[in-house]
């Protein structure tokens, strides 16, 4: 295939007009663990599977959902955790670090918490730079950014290519097509935050291998109080019981 000759250098277009390295990066994301986000009328919820490679791993030390600012949180989707050594989880750490710094610089300059769209745009710019520079490779992660600012609750997805989209509900990773169909059926514009959490859990359950429990999923919510927080395992258990 003519494309393969152009697939190693990310700054070279292939004859079909694609940057093959970025396609590969998106494939890496597509084989990762499922993450999803839902925007409710009064908040946003993001959730992800947290499959650990072995029962010996201390699951409290792994946190896939992080907060970027007090009112913005993020979850990433990567290939399975074995690829931590091939540089995917660490990719997200670099992005999260840069985003936090940018949010802080914005605050110092304007004395205003950074709006969600601005932060997403800055993060996407960073990701794009790594697709158009020498000697670097694209980030192997897609991010789901959830935030609540003056414009209300917002959910964005940022891809390795640097493009970003605003979603009412979105999923990424292994089970993406089933999850999106499920979400399309269940999503309503006037959903409350609690309903959204239940829907998120049900969507994760759809493609879940094994028994879902508070130890192998992570959920982050932001409500009208504009404070992003990651739910504790006991809070997740409560929601799981309500769903049963």
């Amino acid at each position, binding site marked *: 295939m003519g494309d393969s000759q152009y697939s190693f250098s990310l700054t070279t277009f292939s004859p079909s007009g694609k940057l093959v390295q970025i396609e590969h990066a998106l494939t890496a994301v597509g084989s990762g663990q499922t993450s999803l986000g839902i925007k409710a009328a009064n908040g946003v919820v993001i959730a992800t599977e947290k499959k650990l490679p072995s029962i010996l791993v201390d699951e409290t030390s792994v946190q896939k959902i992080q*907060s970027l600012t007090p009112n913005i949180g993020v979850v990433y989707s990567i290939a399975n955790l074995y690829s931590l050594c091939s540089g995917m989880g660490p990719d997200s750490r670099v992005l999260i*670090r840069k985003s*936090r*710094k940018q949010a*802080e*610089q914005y*605050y*110092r*300059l304007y004395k205003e918490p950074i709006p969600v*769209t601005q932060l997403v745009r800055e993060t996407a*710019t960073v990701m794009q*730079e*790594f697709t*158009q*520079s*020498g*000697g*670097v490779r694209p980030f192997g992660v897609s991010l789901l950014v959830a935030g609540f600012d003056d414009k209300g609750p917002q959910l964005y997805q940022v891809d390795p290519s640097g*493009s*970003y989209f605003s979603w009412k509900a979105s999923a990424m990773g292994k089970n993406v097509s089933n999850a999106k169909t499920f979400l399309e059926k269940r999503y309503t514009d006037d959903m409350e935050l609690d309903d959204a959490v239940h829907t998120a859990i049900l969507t994760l359950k759809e493609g879940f291998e094994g028994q879902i429990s508070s130890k192998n999923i992570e959920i982050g919510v932001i409500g009208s109080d504009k404070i992003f927080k990651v739910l504790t395992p006991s809070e997740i258990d409560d929601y799981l019981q309500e769903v049963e």
Partner: protein
Amino acid sequence: MSQISESMPPKGGFSFDLCKRNQMLVNKGLKQPSFLKTGTTIVGLVFQDGVILGADTRATEGPIVADKNCEKIHYMAPNIYCCGAGTAADTEAVTDMVSSQLKLHRYHTGRESRVVTALTLLKSHLFSYQGHVSAALVLGGVDVTGPHLHTIYPHGSTDTLPFATMGSGSLAAMAVFESKYREGLTRDEGVKLVAEAICSGIFNDLGSGSNVDVCVITKGKKEYLRNYLTPNPRTYVSEKGYTFSKKTEVLHTKITPLKELVDVIEAGDAMEE
């Protein structure tokens, strides 16, 4: 690594290029412009459950009072506050910058900030500017290791003390502390002592004045008492009102509202990306 340069704010601070040239001019006999000394009284003390910081609220520009009610107690972290004396711009910029760094540090470590972290960041910044950043600070807070109070001098040296004062009114305030401070004060006794020390600075030092600000920091809680005491209110208002001599009569009255109400129409769709 990145070919595309983002538009970054310029790397701030001093360049020392001109210092050599200034020194050469002084040697040739040119009179250097004098420094504007700003007066202040700032104090801090450690009490039973934590730390209390106090400050006056006068900002001076030479012999003129520039701000009658400015804020000298700056936020550093939810559990750390810092009083600043010296050039107002310097104290504000330095505390702002370190507060920002502490916030990022909290994100990365997931822990509450410690007072010694703030102390080290401040002192290394001030030292690297060799005293040109004219900020004298009283830093106080309560963290996992307990209550702490430090003073930081413009050249970057620090002291750790149970009670401290800085600024032009520091001698007046220190006199009060030295005679009345003892260990194990309660909150009310501590606040009363701090207020007394600041009042001593306000009434006995020209560079300090107006009101007293107090901040009480304890484990897990802080109380910022803005204008805790206002011993200098404006009292005189003439009852008779004011009259003008015959030559000044009102010929024409026109009232222009200072604030125009502008109707904001909802903007169209966001820009296409």
